[in-house]
């Protein structure tokens, strides 16, 4: 199975891109193209005619094969997230919603209780629910049970670039889940995205690492290759670790015998 299946949708790219923090809309659009992504996140914002560049719906819909996944950023409660989801669906026409509820602006850690409540309602309403969650296998399972189409544990804090700090917990979630596990947040370099894929994640969601790179378009391409490499490596069957050396060349004794 080479495509990423989320709800009734399938994607050949396993790299999901965030569209925040780019220096300009033009650079963001180029990075989206270079990444080959088919699913991008966007956020609701108040209309301001003096900041026309903020409105990404038009420019993103001109790129073929892109599906929007609005997030509920800004919501501090389940009620607010549900409201944001309804408005977003109206605007995007997309059934995807990234449920993101973080009440504390200092650490941006997701609120598991409000997230669970919001996901339960939104999944029942027919959304393709993609919750951003702490790397907690119990919560992940509960979200799967209420109909989420994936679970998206954080590698580390949003925008921190601390990589897969929660690697062991992500591994546990992968082992227990029957829905795709997607590492969302904290990734800093393509090697970390590759590692996430090798450990069994079905996709990664990257924003800051690409947006704030010196050359975002080139970095988008690098992440795309790393995600693909990690996925292929996992399917190829990664060799087991050994506690001691195992020779790759024959250790015959004829050299010693000849002297």
């Amino acid at each position, binding site marked *: 199975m080479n495509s990423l299946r989320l709800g009734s949708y399938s994607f050949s790219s396993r790299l999901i891109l965030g569209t925040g923090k780019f220096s300009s809309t033009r650079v963001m659009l180029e990075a989206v193209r270079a990444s080959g992504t088919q699913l991008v996140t966007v956020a609701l914002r108040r209309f301001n005619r003096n900041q026309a560049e903020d409105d990404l*719906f038009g420019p993103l819909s001109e790129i073929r094969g892109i599906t929007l996944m609005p997030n509920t950023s800004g919501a501090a409660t389940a009620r607010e997230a549900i409201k944001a989801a309804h408005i977003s669906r109206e605007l995007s026409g997309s059934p995807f919603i990234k449920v993101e509820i973080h009440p504390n602006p200092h650490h941006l850690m997701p609120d598991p209780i409000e997230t669970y409540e919001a996901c339960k309602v939104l999944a029942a309403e027919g959304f393709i629910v993609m919750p951003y969650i702490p790397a907690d296998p119990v919560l992940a399972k509960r979200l799967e049970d209420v109909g989420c189409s994936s679970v998206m544990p954080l590698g580390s804090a949003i925008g921190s670039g601390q990589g897969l700090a929660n690697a062991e917990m992500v591994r546990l979630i992968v082992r227990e889940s029957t829905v795709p596990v997607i590492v969302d947040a904290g990734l800093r370099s393509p090697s970390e995205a590759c590692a996430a894929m090798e450990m069994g994640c079905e996709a990664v969601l990257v924003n800051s690492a690409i947006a704030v790179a010196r050359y975002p378009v080139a970095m988008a391409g690098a992440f795309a290759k790393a995600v693909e490499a990690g996925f292929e490596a996992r399917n190829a069957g990664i060799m087991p670790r050994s506690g001691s050396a195992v020779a790759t060349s024959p250790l015959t004794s004829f050299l010693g015998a000849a002297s």
Partner: protein
Amino acid sequence: MSTISIILNGECKEIPASASVADLLVVTEVVESQKVAVVVNEHIVRPDKRNSFILQDQDQVEILVFAGGG
């Protein structure tokens, strides 16, 4: 011409009495081709209802777009 006050995106704004949501979008210079969501007092006003939806004094109106986000 009589006017009413609404709260538009968190700020007080005077608009003509009996203005519709569609009229408000013209006043706020939303380009016709631009996709926006309109929420009045927490209710979403879909595009096909914007001509007939007449705003009332003290209505809370949000006009929203998609911006960059992760």
